[in-house]
């Protein structure tokens, strides 16, 4: 009895370093406990991207996680996105172009980064069929367009690039549904579909709105694409039937441009996306897009849904002049709390 009490106290007090799990979070994967990992881009041009960790239990934040866990060594780049797979987190970075790999458990570096001439401006990653697929912008051409955008196919065990698949300009968001890999070519109005068995393009879908940016998959196995629209113009949402690979619903965000970030709740029946007006929510089975924001705000830069906590995480970068602020909301739009991250919080990984 006494031992049980002592053990529980130990867990509660030392959650930071213990492997104790709490029932609140079904799948704790890190020694840091339950919470959220915040991906911070860093100051513009200063290669100082970082990770912050929000501990839900204690409502506290550990800043500069990489530096703290790696003996003072920073990421050393602008951090674009993070992807978790099989016990590792892939930190996709620019300036320099590289993918650092850290352990999901304690965020220590796991070997040398993926880098070199095969990675030219890497952006986002997904894994399927035993391989990793990373969108890369390629070099700028004479007119500041990106005609050399491609998807790098990586053998994760060897950490080598085995294929480079040409896609369309500005390849950005990437999402795997079964063996199909969908790529949002954000400088165009096309989504490319890659067959991961052959690592070749199998189809291209034209979206009703310009600048498709990112994807989420709903409970009906339908793939939602958020489109930013042209410069200063309206964007919209497109829903793709990933079996037939055609759009079966589209809705324009009248008078608004989505910024390109999208999230889905734990049940997979409601999506959330950001525009200049704030956070919008839309039930996946509804044919009416209600553009009244769930949460108003002019400059949100990141949105995520923590399935374990049933909480929306939203980040405001505060003009990129200082540490950004993250706020947690209930699905009904009421705020729970908020905390400071680092400069340019742009996405989340949930624990």
């Amino acid at each position, binding site marked *: 009895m006494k031992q049980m009490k002592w053990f529980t106290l130990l867990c509660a007090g030392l959650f930071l370093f213990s492997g104790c799990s709490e029932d609140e979070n079904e799948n704790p994967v890190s020694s840091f406990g339950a919470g959220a990992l915040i991906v911070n881009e860093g100051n513009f041009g200063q290669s100082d991207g970082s990770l912050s960790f929000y501990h839900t239990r204690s409502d506290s934040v550990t800043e500069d996680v990489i530096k703290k866990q790696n003996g003072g060594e920073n990421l050393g780049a602008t951090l674009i996105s993070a992807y978790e797979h099989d016990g590792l987190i892939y930190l996709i970075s620019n*300036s320099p172009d590289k993918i650092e790999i850290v352990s999901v458990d304690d965020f220590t570096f796991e070997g040398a980064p993926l880098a070199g001439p095969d990675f030219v401006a890497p952006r986002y990653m997904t894994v399927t069929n035993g391989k990793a697929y990373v969108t890369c912008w390629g070099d700028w051409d004479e007119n500041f367009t990106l005609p050399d955008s491609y998807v790098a196919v990586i053998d994760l065990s060897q950490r080598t690039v085995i294929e480079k698949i040409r896609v369309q300009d500005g390849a950005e968001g990437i999402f795997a549904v079964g063996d199909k890999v969908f790529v949002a070519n954000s400088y165009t109005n096309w989504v490319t579909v890659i067959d991961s068995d052959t690592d070749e393009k199998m189809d291209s879908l034209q979206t009703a709105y310009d600048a498709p940016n990112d994807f989420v998959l709903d409970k009906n196995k339908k793939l939602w694409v958020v489109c930013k629209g042209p410069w200063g113009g309206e964007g919209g949402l497109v829903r793709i039937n990933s079996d037939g690979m055609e759009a079966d619903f589209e809705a324009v965000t009248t008078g608004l441009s989505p910024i390109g970030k999208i999230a889905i709740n734990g049940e997979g029946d409601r999506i959330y996306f950001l525009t200049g007006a704030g956070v919008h929510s839309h039930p996946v089975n509804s044919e009416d897009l209600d553009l009244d924001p769930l949460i108003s705000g002019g400059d949100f830069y990141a949105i995520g849904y923590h399935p374990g906590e049933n909480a929306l995480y939203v980040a405001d970068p505060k003009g990129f002049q200082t540490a950004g602020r993250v706020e947690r909301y209930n699905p009904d739009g009421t705020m729970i709390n908020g905390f400071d991250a680092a400069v340019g919080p742009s996405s989340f990984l949930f624990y």
Partner: protein
Amino acid sequence: MKKLFLLWLLGNYLFTGGFAQPHPLNDYGEADTIELEELVIIGIPIEKYAAGSRIQTIEKARIENGRSSKLDDLLARNSAIYLKEYGNGMLSSVSMRGGSSSHTAVLWNGININTLTAGGFDFSQAPIAAIEKVDIQYGSASSLYGSDAIGGVVHLSSIDEWPEKGFRASFQQEAGSFRTWFSSGVVSYSSGPFYTKTSLYRKKSRNNFPFIYRSSEQRQKNAAYQYYGVMQELGYRINPRQSLTLSGWFNHNDREVQPNMQANAYPVRENLRDKNLRISANYKLDHQTGFYSITSGYVHDNELYAIDKASTKIATRRWVNICQYERDLAHGLTAKAGGEWTHIVTDVDGYQREISEDRIDGFLSLNYTPFRWWNSTLNIRRTFIRGYEAPTTPSIGNSLTILENNNGKLIFKTLASKGYRIPTLNDRYQPLSGNPDLLPEKSYSIEAGVRYDLLEERRRLGIEATAYVMKVDELIQWMPIGGDLWIPENIRKVAVHGLEGHAELETQMGDLAMIFTGNYFYTRSINKKEVKAGDGTIGKQLAYSPEHSANLIAEARLNQWSATVMNHFTGRRYTNLGNQSSLQPYFITDLDVARSISVGGSICMLSFKIDNVFNIRYQNYYSKAMPGVGFHAGVRIDFK
């Protein structure tokens, strides 16, 4: 109109023939009525309508000995200006009194040469080889010089004095670390009333200095640079009361953009190529009705930025015409009135159209000396741009001589002024984001200072301290409004207060002459308004604005030898407005040893320099490596 006697820094006396009798000092802190050859006016002195202002003239010797380097190096070691450098030899921008790069007006022969598109001036593109004289005017001077002069003005002149009769030539060659080469040649001829002077210069550097990142040493990549240029001057003294001068300066600067230390192993192909052509023509007439000066200038800036295979052109042309008229109104009262007309035409790929704009300024100045010990100046200036409201900026300054005797003089100065900056062309005309109706940034400042000068037979001492308070409002900040779109807005407010201390000592002990020059400046530049609600940035020190900075130069000359030790200290700087991280303070020492040899009628000078003697590792800008110790050796031959 009184003839004015232009007086060179007394430091020169030490090297050109020793001291004469000590003399009382005039209102500008300079020795008066020395019987030198009477010089024709080169212009209305900067100090004349700037009572109460702090003006520092960089010693001629520093300029002559620094010919192989650039203006940013000179300013960082000799003044109360903070330089922000994006790497070694890379773009460098000044910060005067906590302001940003675009809050300093840079004038060349009276013409504002700040970049019209992005604002500010890149001091790494001003080779000293092209400049004869540098004067720094601290504090707001928009009442005299118009837009941009909020933190101060840097006056560059291609002409310092009318050359003496005869033929002169000077050639210099220098080689240094990291594959650096410098060559220059200056040839001038003066027949008395007429002179011509031609300068050519070229510098090239591989700039592959070693630095340490993550405990291992790397060589800096993609940071090579090369610049070359030519300066041509013609002067014609029509008669003792009329003169005409023409200066043309072409500078070509080609440099790779230094990558961050973190990215050095995989550098991106990124470079900047700048071509700048600057021409000024000036006519002066000293007439019984008054003094007239007309300056006409042309500035063509042409920059090409390239990354990977992409490139974009940023070019502007401007024609500037300045007329000034000065006359005595009464005893002790002089007035100056004038106008300036600038016509701008852009050729910027990013604007997707050509923009042209005319700006007309009117200005009026009064210099009032009711008593010998009290000098007061009142200035006012206004810019007119069609369809745009620009402010009227007045200033009032006073200089009071508290103590004066045969050797020394103590002056108390005060100045109150309003300054402004017209938003840049990028702020106003960038497609989709630009706002042509952005308000001008405005500043209000007050300062007070004391200056003490002592001139003795074998010693000269100058000490100066200035305290100032400044408020800057409607500062423009580019803000993201949802995702990728950023727009400029007048949302910032900053308060700056600070202190500038300066001291110079020159002494002569037998054959040994020594000069010490030191500056200390304290700058507390505080953000007064949140950028975004609740961002917690009120009260924070601005980014890249050190609270404490100082420099000290000690020079010794004995017979043919001279040795100079230059030290400069830069305090902690925050890397963003939130002050979440900062860069360490650093202290750098440079050493310069030179020996001159007379060969026939010419002088040959051999010099050896060590930069960063103690091999200090430091960063001026976050993640840009800076070199450790470096050496150069050079030869200069002056023919007379």
